[in-house]
């Protein structure tokens, strides 16, 4: 058995290549600043969508790992200078932090609701702490944490091994796209492995998986850590894009937004959360240009509408619509064929 019915189909390379080509050609048609930000948000949404949609772990404070990635990059790049190690650390530190938090929660057999509460509290603590780090006392090596004002002007991404060759503009857009597509492929590989299938089993029935001999707590901790690492990467990319890191990366709004992106795009898919992030991210940017209506009010209204009208989100709704369309076309072809055969029979009889 291929296991194709686990809700994770094989990767459709034609779609993937077409999509990648569109992304690669995009700089020829538009500016890259906004698409870069949208791709970063898509990566952040993918990191939550993977663990929520496939392992059933909902983190209300996913921004904690996004923020840790951003701060780790900023602090490390100030101290190291060359950006390769800071970027790796920005994945590793959130990953280790997520592994510690995850192990405490899952081995402590904390129920799903409290997992949500704990993750939320963690990000709030980090937000508070970072806000309180103004002054010279709060410095790590050469990097001052800067409290509410954050860390500005840290060295941005450079060509590996050459700190003077900085990457920004269109080349940076391509770096972000490569990270996004690479992370997507990594998620696909995970889901098509025995580990990924076990995660789906855990989402469906934790007790049964334990009774089959799976180390449920270990597997949940592992995916929580991997997704923490991916969120950290998106945070580091965001830091490079914004060229400043402030405590707002740990904000409640940031955590809530990513949940909304995943819901709107479709929980239980990989493409859905990315679509949700791009659609709502674009809307957020457009709405941010005006002052007459509050941004969060509109986002909230959209969430309510989507939950009521398309409860499974855009991506699953699109797949269902395509399936229905294919069924309808098959039915029409069959009906046409039957009518034609009848006509032939009649003609032959005459």
């Amino acid at each position, binding site marked *: *058995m291929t*296991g194709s*019915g*686990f*809700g994770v189909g094989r990767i459709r390379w034609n779609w993937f290549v077409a999509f990648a080509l569109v992304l690669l050609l995009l700089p020829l048609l538009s500016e890259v600043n906004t698409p870069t930000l949208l791709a970063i948000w898509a990566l952040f949404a993918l990191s939550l969508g993977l663990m929520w949609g496939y392992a059933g772990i909902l983190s209300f404070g996913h921004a904690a790992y996004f923020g840790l990635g951003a701060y780790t990059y900023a602090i490390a790049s100030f101290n190291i200078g060359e950006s390769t190690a800071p970027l790796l650390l920005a994945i590793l530190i959130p990953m280790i932090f997520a592994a510690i938090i995850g192990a405490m929660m899952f081995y402590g*057999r904390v129920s799903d609701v409290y997992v949500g509460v704990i993750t939320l509290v963690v990000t709030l603590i980090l937000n508070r702490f970072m806000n309180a780090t103004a002054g010279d006392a709060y410095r790590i090596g050469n990097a001052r944490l800067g409290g509410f004002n954050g860390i500005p002007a840290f060295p941005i991404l450079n060509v590996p091994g050459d700190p003077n060759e900085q990457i920004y503009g269109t080349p940076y857009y391509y770096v972000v796209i490569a990270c996004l597509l690479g992370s997507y492929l990594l998620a696909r590989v995970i889901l098509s492995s*025995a580990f990924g*299938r*076990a995660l*789906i*089993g855990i*989402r*469906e*029935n934790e*007790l*049964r*998986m*334990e*009774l*089959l*001999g*799976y*180390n*449920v*707590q270990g597997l949940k901790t592992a995916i929580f850590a991997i997704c923490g690492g991916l969120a950290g990467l998106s945070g580091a990319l965001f830091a490079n894009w914004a060229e400043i890191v402030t405590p707002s990366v740990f904000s409640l709004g940031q955590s809530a937004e990513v949940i909304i992106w995943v819901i709107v795009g479709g929980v239980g898919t990989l493409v859905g959360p990315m679509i949700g992030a791009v659609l709502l991210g674009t809307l957020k940017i457009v709405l941010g240009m005006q002052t007459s209506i509050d941004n969060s009010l509109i986002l909230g209204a959209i969430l309510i509408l989507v939950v009521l009208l398309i409860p499974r989100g855009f991506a699953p709704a699109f797949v269902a619509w395509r399936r229905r369309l294919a069924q309808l076309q098959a039915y029409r072809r069959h009906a046409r064929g039957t009518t034609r055969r009848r006509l032939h029979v009649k003609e032959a009889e005459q």
Partner: protein
Amino acid sequence: MSEVVIETRDLSVHFGGVSAVDNVNFSLRERELRCLIGPNGAGKSTFFKSMTGQLRGAESSGRVLIRGEEVTSWPTYRIMRLGVGVKTQVPSVMNGLTIEENLWLSAIRTDAAAADAVVEEIVTEMALQPIARRQVSELAHGQRQLVEIGMVLANRPSLVLLDEPAAGVTGNEMERLVSIIRKINRNAAMIVVDHDMHFVRMLEAQITVFNQGSILVEGTADHVLNDPRVREVYLGTRAR
């Protein structure tokens, strides 16, 4: 004499002031089939769970040994990896997955290379071919019971614990269930907990009667059912 597969020594479980399992000494040998019966609240399921590390937050004492190895404080998954298969009272299956996928998740953990072949074998053995690709949530209760037993089998256990396998199973399915249990029993020791005396008699196994957390009596079906103490706990004092 054959090897003892599982045994409990002075096993007790308390929930607050209530003693659910009281000083139970129990043992099961290689390829033995044992039925656990008893009235509601007798402690059968608690005893069952305490043997497999599923009771958390309860005060317990005594020891559980599997093939001589003490597993008293082990987590459930480690106990299962000793070749233990468990079917729970309420069918515990992956509702969002197909029958094949459920079985595959069980088979892949024990033998990744042979997983597909094992799934095919179990599907054939349990006559599940026509519905093998259907989602478990669409199945009737009795079919889900079979899927769960299939999952236990796919794990290739040497000790199988079945908690009320006949609950919700219809007449024809029950005969099939009995033949499946006998087949499993050829290679594995088994404990079957059930209320249904007709089903228990069909299994022709040794019976252990539980009452108020302790073992009341052990023996063959005829011996146990003719015991006045058993009649009393099942039917009340008027049955004397």
